[in-house]
């Protein structure tokens, strides 16, 4: 790259793209954002190749393409929205390229998750309300809330320890299965099936599933299939956790 501005532009654009993919954005949005950043920085003719595991970018007429691998993956839609806002601010020339890069680094280092207690309560309420919507079983509302809350707690705890999403889903599903069957055994609930269906809902891989469909429809076949595989693995992890408990007890 001939000058510093070009270097900074590619660095910033790849940084923005990496944050978006890491947190569960669809591929078309990432390549669109990167192309816009390049165009707004004065390089209208850039070539970007985005997949779910890495980004390649070059500017036409200059040598040296650059690669940014994407290794970690989590779900945080707020970060995607913030990158989107920053890109809009940059397009309106409210911030400079250097400020843009600085704010991306800040954003990456200081995630703003909802506090854990709120996540736990949300998981519980989500389980209970979906149990009623799906099955119409009002008496089991409270016990489903409780078991869903514990299930999300297991998921969160194992995720902090092992950082393997499939393992945490498997263990959380197994825990939910045991608790639901015990709850029915000790007459806290009436139907183990309904309790399990509700409590498992917070673990559903909604983001990979939706993005897989969107990616495939947008023509990003490689990423779409990879993402579909991720969703399928999650579903298999949850399903085998439940199946194991149902067979054993």
């Amino acid at each position, binding site marked *: 790259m001939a000058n510093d501005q070009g270097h900074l532009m590619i660095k910033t654009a790849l940084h923005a793209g990496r944050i978006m993919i890491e947190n569960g*954005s669809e591929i078309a949005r990432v390549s669109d954002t990167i192309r816009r950043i390049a165009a707004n920085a004065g390089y209208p003719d850039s070539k970007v190749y985005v997949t779910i595991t890495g980004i390649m970018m070059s500017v036409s007429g200059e040598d040296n393409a650059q690669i940014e691998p994407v290794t970690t993956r989590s779900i*945080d*839609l707020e970060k995607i929205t913030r990158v989107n806002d920053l890109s809009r601010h940059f397009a309106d020339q409210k911030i400079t390229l250097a400020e843009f890069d600085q704010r991306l680094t800040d954003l990456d280092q200081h995630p703003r998750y909802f506090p854990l207690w709120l996540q736990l309560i949300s998981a519980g309420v989500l389980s209970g309300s*979906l149990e009623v919507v799906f099955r119409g079983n009002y008496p089991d509302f409270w016990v489903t809330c409780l078991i869903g809350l514990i299930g999300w707690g297991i998921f969160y705890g194992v995720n902090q320890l092992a950082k393997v999403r499939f393992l945490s889903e498997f263990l959380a599903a197994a825990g939910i299965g045991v608790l639901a069957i015990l709850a029915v055994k000790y007459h806290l609930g009436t139907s183990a099936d309904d309790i399990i269906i509700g409590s498992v*809902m917070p673990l559903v891989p909604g983001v990979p599933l939706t993005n897989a469909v969107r990616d495939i429809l947008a023509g990003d076949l490689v990423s779409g299939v990879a993402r579909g595989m991720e969703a399928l693995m999650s579903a298999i992890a949850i399903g085998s956790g439940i199946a194991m408990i149902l*067979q054993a007890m």
Partner: protein
Amino acid sequence: MLNLLIELGLTYIATITFGVLLNVPRTSLNIGGWIGVLSFLAYRLCMMADMGIAIANLVGALVIGILSMQAARYKKMPVINFNIPALVPFVPGGQAYQMIKNFALGDVSTAISFLLQVTIIAGSIAFGLLLAEMVNRLQSKLMVIFSSRWSRDNRRNPKL
């Protein structure tokens, strides 16, 4: 009737709480919840009119796709903030669970019939979202023709 109202209220709560789990920005939670309620209402009305589970899910996903695109334009936020939480009441959780249970307990033929139901529902949701995408593209084409601000903003957009 009372049941329907309770279900819609619970759908609103479920959509918002799923948004919390995905860390959706706070300002878009409420609109996401309303999209969830409206799409679930459309789904329920189709089910009441005996149109079959495939059409009902397709209509629900169509409503989600169209409304979340409008919300995304209005709030200037990525569309996944709205459509992923709103899809949660449509997840075929009951059928998927019955499938797993019957596979685990060895009743393979029942399990396969539930597997087919899950596939039908998932396919209808995917095609509902696809149709919504088409409607949204059509809308932006019309907007480009009729509104000068839009045509200035989107003149170089290759998708249009």
